[in-house]
Structures are given as structure tokens and as C-alpha cells.
């Protein structure tokens, strides 16, 4: 298992150094992202648009299309990565990810229902599809949670199994809806593979509070996450209010993931993979790991989205397909290096 090894003073210094390096990488990636795209708008236009300047069509494309999309990619990547890190500690399982307790299947059901039934609902910055995806995602998590809470105790293994079972059942319903729908399912397919092609400032405003709150909660509870890795009994004996902490962590993870999925669809692999890479670079202590995961998740998803919108420009590829195709071999490589 890629958990913490021995932590020497030198290794510790190197690990703290990784954070500024990741931050710098993220900043450079963001700048590159603003200069890349299918429209004929390059880096100089991007810089001019950012520094004010005149408001030509190029500036509009950078400010109103590329910038929100770039910011959203970073935020969604960070949310999925933080949520994945929390879930892996929560379940003490390296296979855990943000979608484990039914968030993605619930969101998919909500989104597909909204698209197929042609609903029109709005709430604040939420338009129909994100709203429906968000509500259904949280609904399914609440159901899974409720089914596994008995006499004030939360059954972790039950959560896993119920999450998988309900997730499978909902996926089947989604497939049935798609097959029997009289409407076009192109939109649905793209959504199920994840995409940021609909990105706009409203979406940034939707996820921003969750990213902030999630990061804050994760940071406050970082030490508890470290202790949870030793098991509930040890954790409790070291002073962690285990049940309450678990509930808070699960709720935080579900909210972050639901917000991310609501605006981007189901982007696979980021939440599962990033925590492992982050642990490899930063070690397993959660205070550092969570910040590192957030940065890495942002970088990774941003580059995946840059590829999605430039590889076959002017058409776009589904983002989730790219994260999985690029991510899987990388994770396999990391595992083999960790073993040797």
C-alpha cells in the first residue's frame, strides 16, 4: 500500500517543497490554457485581454469562454481530488473514490431525467441540468447513508455495498431511460463521459463555495483523517469523535462531488488517481496531502480539458475519456515504481 513510509527530516523538507512547485505548475498551466484553443486567439491576445486593454472579439473569447472554462476545470479537478482523498481515508481503502456512495449515479439519473423530460427549473445560479443532477446526487447519498445508520452507528462496509448496489440499479434505470427516450441522447452520452464544454461563470459560482468549504473542513479535520487510518477504535482512543467526524466527512465529500458532477458530468478517474500521485509526492499526512491533491487535481483536469478541446479542434472530445486514457497508464507506472 502506498501509505506513509518512514519519514526522515530530508524527505519531509522535500515534501514541503513539492507544494510551491505544484502551485507554480498550476499557475503556468492556467496561463497556457488561456492561450490554447480552437479559435485563432493566441497568448498575446490572452495577455492583453487579462490586463484590461480593448474589448475586441479575441478578448471576449479569452475572458468569457476560456477563462471560466479554465477556472472551472481547476475547481472541478480540485474538488474531485479532495473528495477522493477523503473517501480513501474514510474507507481506509485505496480503491475508494468520490463516486463510491452513489453521487455519480444519482447525478446521472438527475441529469438524464432533466434532459429527457425537458424540465425547466432554476434556482439561483443553478440551471435545470446542474440543479437536477445536484439534488439527485445528494438524494442518493442520503439514501445510502440512511440505510446504513443503525442506533447512532454508521456501518462503513455496508455503505460500500449499498452504494455499489444502488449505483448499479440506478445505472440500469439511466440506460433504460436512454433507450426508451424519444429525444436525442447525444447530450446525455457526452454528459455521462464528462465535459466542460458548457462551462460558464455561473458554474464557477456554483462550485466555488463548495471548493472553499470543502477545503476548510478537510483542513480542520486533517488530523482526524490521519488518525482514522489507524481504525475507529484507535481513532476513538486518541480522541477523535469518530461517528460525528465520519458523518461530517461523508457529507463534505458528497457535497463537493455533487457540485463538481453537476457542472461537468461524470469525469472518471481523477478522484481515484490524484490522491495516489499526491501521496507519492507528498506523503500521507493529510494536511499536506489535501492541499497537494487539490493542486494536482486542478492541474490534471486542466490539462485533460486542454487536450479535450484542442486534440481534434474545432470539435471536442469527452473529457472523462481523456482522464481515463491518460490517467490509467500513469497510475500503473506509479504503482510499479512504488513496488520496485
Amino acid at each position, binding site marked *: 500500500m502506498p501509505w506513509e513510509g518512514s519519514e526522515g527530516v530530508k524527505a519531509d523538507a522535500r515534501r514541503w517543497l513539492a507544494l510551491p512547485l505544484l502551485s507554480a505548475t498550476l499557475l503556468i498551466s492556467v496561463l497556457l490554457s488561456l492561450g490554447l484553443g480552437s479559435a485563432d486567439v493566441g497568448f498575446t491576445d490572452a495577455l492583453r485581454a487579462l490586463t484590461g486593454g480593448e474589448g475586441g472579439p479575441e478578448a*471576449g473569447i479569452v475572458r468569457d469562454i476560456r477563462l471560466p472554462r479554465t477556472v472551472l476545470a481547476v475547481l472541478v479537478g480540485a474538488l474531485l481530488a479532495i473528495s477522493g482523498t477523503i473517501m480513501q481515508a474514510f474507507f481506509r481503502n485505496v480503491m475508494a473514490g468520490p463516486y463510491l456512495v452513489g453521487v455519480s449515479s444519482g447525478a446521472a439519473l438527475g441529469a438524464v431525467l432533466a434532459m429527457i423530460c425537458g424540465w425547466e427549473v432554476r434556482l439561483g445560479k443553478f440551471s435545470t441540468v446542474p440543479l437536477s443532477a445536484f439534488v439527485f446526487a445528494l438524494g442518493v447519498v442520503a439514501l445510502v447513508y440512511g440505510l446504513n445508520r443503525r442506533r447512532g452507528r454508521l456501518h462503513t462496509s455496508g455503505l460500500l455495498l449499498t452504494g455499489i448496489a444502488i449505483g448499479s440499479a440506478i445505472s440500469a434505470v439511466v440506460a433504460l431511460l436512454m433507450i426508451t427516450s424519444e429525444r436525442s441522447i447525444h447530450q446525455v452520452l457526452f454528459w455521462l463521459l464528462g465535459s466542460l464544454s458548457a462551462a460558464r461563470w455561473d458554474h464557477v459560482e456554483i462550485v466555488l463555495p463548495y471548493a472553499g468549504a470543502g477545503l476548510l473542513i478537510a483542513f480542520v479535520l486533517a488530523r482526524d483523517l490521519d488518525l482514522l487510518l489507524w481504525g475507529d477504535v484507535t481513532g476513538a482512543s486518541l480522541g477523535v469523535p469518530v461517528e460525528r467526524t465520519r458523518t461530517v466527512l461523508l457529507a463534505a465529500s458528497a457535497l463537493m462531488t455533487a457540485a463538481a458532477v453537476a457542472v461537468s458530468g461524470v469525469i472518471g478517474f481523477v478522484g481515484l488517481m490524484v490522491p495516489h500521485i499526491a501521496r507519492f509526492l507528498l506523503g500521507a499526512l493529510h494536511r499536506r496531502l489535501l492541499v497537494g491533491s487539490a493542486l494536482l487535481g486542478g492541474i490534471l483536469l486542466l490539462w485533460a480539458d486542454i487536450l479535450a478541446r484542442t486534440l481534434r479542434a*474545432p470539435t471536442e472530445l469527452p473529457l472523462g475519456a481523456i482522464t481515463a486514457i491518460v490517467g490509467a497508464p500513469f497510475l500503473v507506472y506509479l504503482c510499479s515504481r512504488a513496488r520496485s
Partner: protein
Amino acid sequence: MSLGGLIGILLATLLGGASTFEDVMGHQVAWERPPQRIVSLSPSITEILFAIGCDTTVVVGVTRFCNYPPEARTIARIGGIVDPNLEEIVALEPDLVLATRGNPIEFMESLTRLKVPVYALETREGLEQVLRTIEEIGAVTGREGAARREVEHLREGLAQVRARSAARTGPRPRVFYGYGGLEGPHWTAGPGSYVHDLITAAGGVNVGGRAPSAWSTLSLETIVEADPQVYLGTFASEGEEAARRRVLRQLREHEGWSQTALARNPRIILFAEDRLQRPGPRLFSVLEELSRALGGE
């Protein structure tokens, strides 16, 4: 195909002036008397069959999506396009099943194995292909004359629209066809699609012409860069007004769209989904209306 079948076709051809047809996939259909019991596996085929003079006594099975012409709703349903029901079709004892792209290939093979004659049609390409498909259906159903007259009639309309477009002066309006609205992913019709042909013939410039294939997504920045002036779209059960309000709202709300000429002076042309999304004869009435709308009439 079995040797017996081949000999049968040969004999029939030599003796009785029977007709044999082979489709793009290699299915063979032979008859001495034009088919009397036809099953259609797609709404566009159903529309074409009625346009060339078939009625509910000849078209005995249709998909659950076949809603035009209205009498098509009274015909037995054989399931959907991707999920047709083998038993229902066999029970109808058809002497011809017309299939199209989108129907499962294994399903056509199952029909062939059960000795139900299947003929598959290519219907997804450009406007010319729609006309060729009408002629092809005319031939394989033994209604060549009616099909030829229908195609001539449609061609006349097409020529008139093209002449009208050519006579117009001034720059041609830039049209974006949104398959699924203005929110991403932005599916649209590229070169080689019949929608592209419709827009071009009606005197517009298709923004989707930049797309790499007939049906494709286009990134928003490419669309905004092209600066569309007209939005061409569809409405379904929600109705035209609701669809128009949604498009207007999306144009206003989305920072990307809001910079286009379309947002400054919205020209929104909507057609019922089944009229614009079916490669059949009704596309030519869509063309007529689109031409008038683009010409400002």
C-alpha cells in the same frame, strides 16, 4: 445466401420477369409482384413510403416513433429504431422490411435467417442522398413511377429555392444549427449533412461548415469566432414558444454567446423536431420555409 435461394432468384428472373435488388450491405430482395406487406424500421422510411403512395394497407408495421403522416399512428408498432421486436415483425408476415442506419445490424441478420426479406437504406447523408433514397425505396417497393414524380416535384422546389437564394444580394446570413440547444456540448451539422445542404441552399452560411464531419461537436470559441447571426433549432413537445424563450434566455445568460451578433439581434428559426431531424420528403417544405425566413420574408 443458400444455393437454392440463388437458383430460385435466377429461375424467377429468367422465367417471370421478376425483379431482384441488392442493398448497400449485400442483402438481396427478389419479387415477382411488388411487396404488399411492408414493415418500416424508421420514421423517415415511413414518411417516404406514404409520400410515394403507400397506405396503411401496404405499410403494416412501423416503429413507435413513426408519427407522420397521422395515419401512421394507426399502424401496428414493432418497437423502436434500436430495439425493434423480432416476434412482432415476423407475426406481421411482411414481404419486405425496410431498414436504415441505426437499426442493429445483427437484427437485420436475424430477419434474413428467418427468411424475411430485408433491404437496408443509407439515409443519413446530404440532401441529394434523401432524393436517391426516395428513388431507391420506389424501386424496391415497385413504385418507381410515383417515386420519380415525387423526386421531380421535390427537385423543382429545390431549384426554385436555389434560384431565389442566388438572386439575393448582400452578404449571406451566418446560421448556427444547434442540435440540442445552446448549452454545451455544441452538437451541430457539418459538411455532408442534409442540414448543411438545407442552410446552404436556403442562402445561408452554415457555421457548422467548420466542423470536421457531418455530425459533430464544435467548441464554443469556434462558434463565437464565426459570429452566427441566425439560430436554427428544433422544438419538441414543449412547443415553439417555450423553446424560443429558452434559446433567448441562454443567449442572454451565457457570457460566450452574449457577444455574438445573434445575441445582439436574435433571429431564431425553429422547426418541429420531427420535421428537421428526419431525412425525408418534409425536409423540402422545411427548406422552403427556411429560405423565406433567411430572406426576411
